[in-house]
């Protein structure tokens, strides 16, 4: 019964062009993957060294790990293009995911507080994440990574203004 009148109010929300996040954030993802790979590789190497394994084992294990991480990186690459956000007058939305895709919307008038956080790599590229908290029961609130620092501050400003005014 209500299906008809909704479409008028929200002209094809799901077809609206969501914006992509900052391209530089992919570098951060790549660096994170690389760092994790290096840590795991060194742990494995030490382990194999203690166990006095043959060089062929080193080769198999290491190439296997590198292959696995290449796959992870490929998945992250495909996933990166799916990370998109949309800010409207009253709410903020975020889309992501390859195998499991999701769209989340948080109305501004339900936001409890907003945090801006930066990791080490993100700071090198002047990037920041936006953490948005609501009173949701599961605490599964919205985290959008990969904004430029100014953009994040700007969005925070927009939302804060909207809440208080």
């Amino acid at each position, binding site marked *: *019964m*209500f*299906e008809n009148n*909704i*479409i008028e*109010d*929200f002209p094809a*929300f*799901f077809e609206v062009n969501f914006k992509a996040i900052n391209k530089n954030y992919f570098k951060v993802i790549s660096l994170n993957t690389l760092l994790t790979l290096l840590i795991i590789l060194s742990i494995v190497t030490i382990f194999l060294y203690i166990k006095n394994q043959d060089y062929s084992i080193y080769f198999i294990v290491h190439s296997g790990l590198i292959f696995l991480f290449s796959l992870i990186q490929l998945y992250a690459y495909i996933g990166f293009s799916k990370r998109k956000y949309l800010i409207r007058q*009253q*709410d903020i939305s975020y889309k992501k995911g*390859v*195998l*499991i*895709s*999701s*769209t*989340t*919307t*948080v*109305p*501004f*008038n*339900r936001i*409890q507080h907003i945090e801006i956080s930066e990791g080490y790599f993100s700071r090198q590229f002047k990037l920041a994440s936006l953490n948005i908290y*609501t*009173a*949701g*029961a*599961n605490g*599964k*609130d*919205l985290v959008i990574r990969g904004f430029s620092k100014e953009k994040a501050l700007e969005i925070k400003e927009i939302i804060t203004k909207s809440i208080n005014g």
Partner: protein
Amino acid sequence: MDNSLDFSAFTRQSPKGIIVLYFQNVFKFLKDWWSIFIPVFLIKNTAEFFEIILILLSVLLIFILIRTILIYLKYTFKIENNHFILKQGVLRKSLTSIAFDKIQNINYKQNFIQQLIGVTQVDIETAGAKTAEISIKALSKEKAEMIKLILMANRSIDQTENTINTDKKTILSLSIADLIKESLTENHLKNLLLLVAFIWSLFGRNKEFLEKIKVENYDFFSKTIIEVSIVFIFVLPTLILFSFVIIILKHYDLTLKFNKNALEIKQGLFTKKHQVLKIEKVQGILISTNPFKQFLGIFSVVLNQVSSDNAKVSPAKIIGCNKQQTIAIKNTIFENLNFSKSKVYKPHNYFIFQLFLKKFFLILIINFFFLFSQNSYLIYLNLVIIPFLMLLIYKNFKKRFFKFNKNVLKVGEGQIATSTIYLEYFKLQNIQLKQTVFQKRKNICNLIIQTASKTIELPCVNIYEAQNIYNYFILKTETSNKPWM
């Protein structure tokens, strides 16, 4: 207003509170530190044993008494500028201030000792993430009433006094017979587990007892069917008695009253609980029943409240309602519950497959354990388990539906039990649409609706319908001026 009922200056609790606090502290100490007495029990000499026990106990009891008195003296509170202000702490001092409009609920409680000496415990529940729940252990009855009046007034005392004095409509009051009916139809399997857990926590640490149990268990499983059924005949009445005792303790003399904008729930035998729930703070309700209860026409209603980070606010559960009473409760909370013109949505058939997959893994895991257990007969349990799980899938799919009207979402779910959830759109906190690649091919998705008390998932909804629902939820939330808490 009586001078003694004035809260503008810092006030202490009732002096009788020392007794309540003392018992609580002693009890808490014994619960946390009982293990320090173990070495004493190793002393063989009886006279020496009693001597040491006596000295140890008296030192401890005096220490706790001094501590209790200090805590009592330092625990003061006042009401100022629409804030409840609490000062507490002997060594580590703290000052808590709670704005009236952040107060979620005020509950009275009386445990056995509190009833005996005639004081009331007042719990102030807040929804804010940063302020913890406040529990004043001992207030005189008048003071407790007064505090509630002031705090629930939301800036105006007169208004509340009016509300309290105007006629309260009693929606429900339960007799012993109702409670017996309720306990007969409980989920006794769940109580069995509770009972086992209780016995376990009592004796679990004792190794000898554990060994005994193990031997008995072994015997128990190897008994013939006749013997097992005899045991069953004894176990079932025990379980019924057990749930009867629990229900009497928790829900004795349950009454539910309604006035202007709040529901009042009173219940309990030794620990009397008195909850006042503002209607606007209710995030959604859940009405549930099981096959036995349905046969007798009994339902229970859960009023979901905001849960805060620090203290999980327990949802208010009202048991033993009949059909008319559930309708009365529903109507006090929601304005528009007319679903006669609404379309009934069912999940896509793919949902059955998803359920099937989950149960399949469960069966795999169970059989994995059977395989590695010594008893090869266990495999035959599959003959019971598999049909049962299939029945659950069938019931789960059959009972699941969603309906929408202008203001309220109605969701049906359940397997053996049946529950119906009602939720007003504007109570939404955030909303998510989730789709796996497999769902994408079928043009369906899951809709996850998060409120401040509960997350509701509508599985395998048609994508276009889901998008409409999604938009409608956002629209309603963004255009609503009503407070969501």
